[in-house]
């Protein structure tokens, strides 16, 4: 199974997962989708390490798997449990129009990434547009979704896609930077947890729309 084909398959699966994450409405379902997506990404990291001859990537893949598949989803689930039942808060765009927008975003991703895929010597180049589509979809989720937790998931999806692009384009960035990024993402999520909980206490619902007092 040549290296390039495997990487493209995994990237495609990654994009599929992000689409699924958008469709799900229940918080726990979304967290589970995110865990699976991170798992796929960890596998991709392993594949790149194996074929690309980058041994230290195995370590990175392992750390990535621990943080993104185990630690963060458990933290998210703990918060979901603490928040308890939630009134369903419809996002700004319905599911069908969201998917239409995501399609457009994929096309934009392909046009934007044209120069990169054109000049990239590495076999994994074809996956980059897919990864970049993940970035745009992650960003769009934070815009579209009204619940704080889903916004955090959107942000995490964005981080994952960027890590994926790094993997596909340059077989990963130097180690020190990787660790720094993971550390920052972890701390960011922890702080966001605290805030979601604090919002729940003050506004008894995590709909971010109530946070609209500061104007002008």
């Amino acid at each position, binding site marked *: 199974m040549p290296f390039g084909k495997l990487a493209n398959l995994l990237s495609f699966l990654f994009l599929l997962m992000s689409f699924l994450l958008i469709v799900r409405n229940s918080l726990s379902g979304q967290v589970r989708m995110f865990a699976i997506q991170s798992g796929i990404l960890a596998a991709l990291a392993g594949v790149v390490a194996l074929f690309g001859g980058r041994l230290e990537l195995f370590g990175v893949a392992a750390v990535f798997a621990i943080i993104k598949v185990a630690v963060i989803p458990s933290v998210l689930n703990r918060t979901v449990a603490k928040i308890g039942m939630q009134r369903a808060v419809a996002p700004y765009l319905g599911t069908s129009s969201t998917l239409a927008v995501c399609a457009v975003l994929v096309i934009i991703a392909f046009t*934007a990434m044209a*120069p*990169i895929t054109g*000049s*990239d*010597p590495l076999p994994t180049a074809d996956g980059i547009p897919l990864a970049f589509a993940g*970035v745009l979809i992650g*960003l769009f989720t*934070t815009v579209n979704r009204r619940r*704080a937790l889903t*916004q955090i998931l959107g*942000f995490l999806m*964005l*981080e994952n896609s*960027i890590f994926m*692009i*790094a993997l596909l*384009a*340059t077989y990963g*960035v*130097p180690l*020190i*930077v990787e660790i*720094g*990024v993971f*550390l*920052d993402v972890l*701390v*960011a999520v922890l*702080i*966001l947890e605290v*805030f979601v909980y*604090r*919002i729940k206490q*003050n506004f008894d619902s995590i709909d*971010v729309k109530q*946070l*609209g*007092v*500061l104007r*002008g």
Partner: protein
Amino acid sequence: MILVLLLFVPAVASALIARSRNSSRAALIHVWANIATLIAGLDVVQRVYVTKTEIAWNLLRADSLSAFMIAIITFISAITGIYAVGYVNTEFDSSQFRRARLFYALFQLFIFTMLLAVTTDNLGVMWVAIEGTTLATVFLVNLHDNHTGLEAAYKYLILSSVGIALAFMGTVFMYYAAVAQASEIGLSWTSLIAVANRLDPTIVRLAFVFILIGYGTKAGLAPMHTWLPDAHSEAPAPISALMSGVLLNVGLYALIRFKAVADISAGPAFASAWLMRFGLLSLGLSAAFLVSQRNYKRMLAYSSVEHTGIIALGLGFGGYWGTLGALLHMVNHALSKSMLFILSGSILLKYRTTEIRGVRGLLKTAPWTGRAFLCGIFALVGLPPFGAFISEFIIFRAGFAMHSTAYSVIGISLLVVVFAGMLASMNSMLYGSPAEPWDRSDPVRLPLAPVALNVVLLLALGLTLPDGVQEFLGGVLRIVGVSL
């Protein structure tokens, strides 16, 4: 050696404060840490200026541009740190010791992350450090833990993290462009500059787009500035002074670093054009908000967006004068804005409201705070005796020299609108007769002294430019790749 020491002091201080038992010990450690950082910082600047070369230690590296930033960071944090002690003592009574301790600890951590951002040579570590600054200040913005504090902090975190993620995107693409040329190349800025002329221009342009949006968010450029007014008006005064005065400059520092690379590979036209457009947009947008503003802390926050716009215009005009004007304007803005936020803290302590209508006859009730506030506003708005007038004059002269007269004309007319708006607010606050039961006392009187130092420096920058400083700035400009 010296760089490690510079970073070591705030980190250790933050840890020590976290474990200290009473607030007076925490304050003591805090003040001494600030002074030590200032001394270390000035020593780095002195070394870089004397030896004309940079100091390097595997990951850390300080050339004249980072020495310039270190000087700003350490000086402003020392000034704000001293004032912070007075502010915390009056703001929090003894019962809220844990909150005061958290304040001091995060304050030192904040300084550590900023210093790390400017002293590291590795662009990835720089990104991590800048993301670190956001994380360090989130809880400081929400120190008072009320509804609006929570809202501001949440928005600040989400917007900054998303923005910074895009910046990392840009860094990855820049790294990709570099790897395509020379396979075994680290993510360090010096190596990037060395290979810059061989990079593929289209990829560098794409990377710079992400960098501009990402670090533009941290610097407060227009469409991405929306977190800034909320965060700076809700944070306690010393913190918003530090954020507005220095953190925005760190964002601009990252932009300057990447602009240097983009100018060599993709030609100066691309980066300058977009910087000018974003700069003018932030100037226009902030002018609209400053015309009739009701809250004086938000007024100062929007004026930060305005000044970032002016600095972006300066960088956009480029050439020797444009960049020199931008650097000088960074210093002027840092000094005047931090001074004004400190004073807004005192005003808040005395009048207990951030509404401009609520504050009247400041010159009568708190004479020294009032007079300093007057000097601050005049410095901020760019009136002659103070430095901002000179730097704006240089920037717009460069605008004319670079034949982008349209930008200069619109810029200057927007500055007049801003002047009208801020003067109206200042007039209603300083003059008039205060509401009846008023006493003539300056809150937080002693720690107000460092503000005088700010005024003196602003006047010095306004009236003269000693040769030593001009030479040092010439060195900085050479690093950025601009020569007379």
